[in-house]
């Protein structure tokens, strides 16, 4: 992973340093075996410090880039790391199986669960297969089916949100993209079992909330959640998508802003350098946070779960709710 890593623009200082480290670690490039060892240690430490400094003060647009980083752990990695006995369940029972949203049954730390989430894919072939995580109506109808199943068998639902948005295609419109999103949101809100959503990358618009109408909404430190992409917002408000940075700032899309607005309930810290710099640690941290939240929700009755969820969403942005 690290050796093939994609550097983001603002990671340039780290990239330069790490290039130098690589140069020095090439045994053909030097005959002095002592000096580099000392230098390397210092360089590595410097790189780590610079990275930490950069990541401590990412601006919203930089966070957007981190949230979209191709090496950021995807749904499949969360399943591999957190779910035992996973059995993928496919299809909407109406038209197709949409691999932009994957879901199934399994055990999360011993507890039977339904899991589902957007999958962006990891290489060209799988990105195409998963349509870059942009679901069609069939994806949202599958999520409704999975939530029905969860309710029927009393299983908690864990969702992982990572999408630029629902697929804006002709065919998706024809088959009722709006209706499918609306029904998926509705199903989440009416679910009589615990439901925890984690925004692991991009939480893009209706396509995201359709899997995030949950009792608890967690978010990774550098993830974003937004009503429209910064580029989309900029192109509407400034008629210039290049002003995405301004839009990202104005719209308050970062985990930190969203926690203040009570749109999310909990931030899961990322490793220094972002989730992509240590996927395994990220997956574990997400798992630990989910486990804690799930434990608390398991104490509630089905009625209480539905009430808690309603109260949670009603409180957002409400005058006197103390959120703003």
């Amino acid at each position, binding site marked *: 992973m690290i050796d093939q890593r994609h550097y983001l623009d603002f990671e340039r200082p780290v990239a330069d340093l790490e290039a130098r480290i690589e140069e020095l670690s090439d045994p053909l490039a030097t005959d002095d075996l002592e000096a580099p060892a000392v230098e390397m240690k210092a360089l590595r430490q410097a790189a780590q410090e610079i990275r930490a400094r950069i990541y401590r003060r990412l601006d919203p647009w930089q966070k957007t880039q981190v949230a979209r980083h191709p090496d950021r752990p995807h749904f499949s990695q969360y399943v591999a790391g957190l779910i035992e006995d996973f059995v993928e369940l496919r299809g909407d029972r109406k038209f197709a199986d949409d691999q932009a949203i994957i879901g199934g049954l399994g055990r999360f730390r011993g507890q039977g669960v339904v899991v589902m989430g957007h999958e962006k894919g990891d290489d060209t072939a799988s990105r195409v297969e998963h349509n870059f995580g942009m679901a069609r109506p069939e994806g949202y109808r599958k999520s409704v089916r999975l939530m029905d199943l969860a309710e029927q068998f009393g299983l908690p639902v864990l969702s992982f949100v990572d999408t630029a948005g*629902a*697929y*804006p*295609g*002709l065919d*998706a*419109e*024809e*088959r*009722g*993209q*709006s*209706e499918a*999103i*609306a*029904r998926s*949101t*509705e199903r989440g*809100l*009416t679910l009589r079992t615990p439901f925890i959503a984690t925004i692991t990358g991009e939480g893009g*618009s*209706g396509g995201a*909330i*359709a899997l995030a*109408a949950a009792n608890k909404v967690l978010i990774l430190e550098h993830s974003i*959640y*937004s*009503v*429209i992409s910064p580029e*989309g*917002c900029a192109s*509407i*408000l*400034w008629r210039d998508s290049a002003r995405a940075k*301004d*839009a990202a700032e*104005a*719209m*308050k*899309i970062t985990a930190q802003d*969203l926690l203040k*607005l009570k*749109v999310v309930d909990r931030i899961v810290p990322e490793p220094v350098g972002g989730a992509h710099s240590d996927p395994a640690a990220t997956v574990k941290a997400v798992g630990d946070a989910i486990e804690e939240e799930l434990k608390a929700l398991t104490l509630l009755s089905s009625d209480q779960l539905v009430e808690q969820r*309603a109260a949670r*969403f*009603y409180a*957002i*942005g*409400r*005058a006197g709710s103390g959120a*703003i």
Partner: protein
Amino acid sequence: MAEQDPKRKLSWLAKIAPGVRKMVSRHTGFAGNLWLKDPNTGEMVYQPDLEQALWVTPSGSHMRIGPAQRFAYTFDEGLHERLPAPESPDDPLKFTDDKPYRERLTAARKATGANDAVAIATGRIGGTQTVVLVQNFAFMGGSLGTAAGEGFIAAAEAAVARRAPLVVFTAAGGARMQEGALSLMQMARTTLAIQTLKKAHLPYIVVLTDPTTGGVTASYAMLGDIHLAEPGALIGFAGRRVIEQTIRQTLPPGFQRSEFLLEKGMIDKVVHRKDLPAVLASILGVLTAGRATAA
């Protein structure tokens, strides 16, 4: 298939006429140009004629109308009582693009005389006491912010309190970007409000009008027990330009129009504006006469 008794239709026209007449007389005081362009044909139409025709042009184009006209056209004899929308925080994000959001709000309020994009009223439709919510496209494109979301919730609460159906006339470009994720949250919050109607077995009827797109379509506009639409209304999730960029193809004619959605199974009936009160009356009459009780 005979769907409307012609006698009934006549009696309905007679009924709503007073309301319409009131609207007409109120508007003819208007000082501006009395001739308007038909958006379909470019033909000039005399405004008092247009008002008499419920703002439907001779070519059948259903022009956008605001809450005042909608209430007048919808309720029996146009009679209704306005219900207040609750207070909600202005400009929660301190949002600014070229102009501060707060200034845009102030301008929209001045232009429309309303606090935000939704208006609520109650009255009778075909004799059935009903709560009606209207989205006003003239107020910042009808966009769904916290105020509109709170309005929707209030309308649902009013309906439940009165054990009355809720009829919503949608019209919106989508979410209100200036409220960021708080705007997005209205998709969930309005959906919750609808559940209170379902639980009480009260009808929730959506009338889709031009245009209804984005997050509004992907939430309460598609969760009705019954979906009606005015002819030719633009209804969809993604915008035309975004779709064309995505699929690199131009879209077929009629795409995302009411008639298209009818064919695609998303809408029950496309109804001419003049027939809406009668159709609503029939639907509400039947749905409220069943023996359903709260679960």
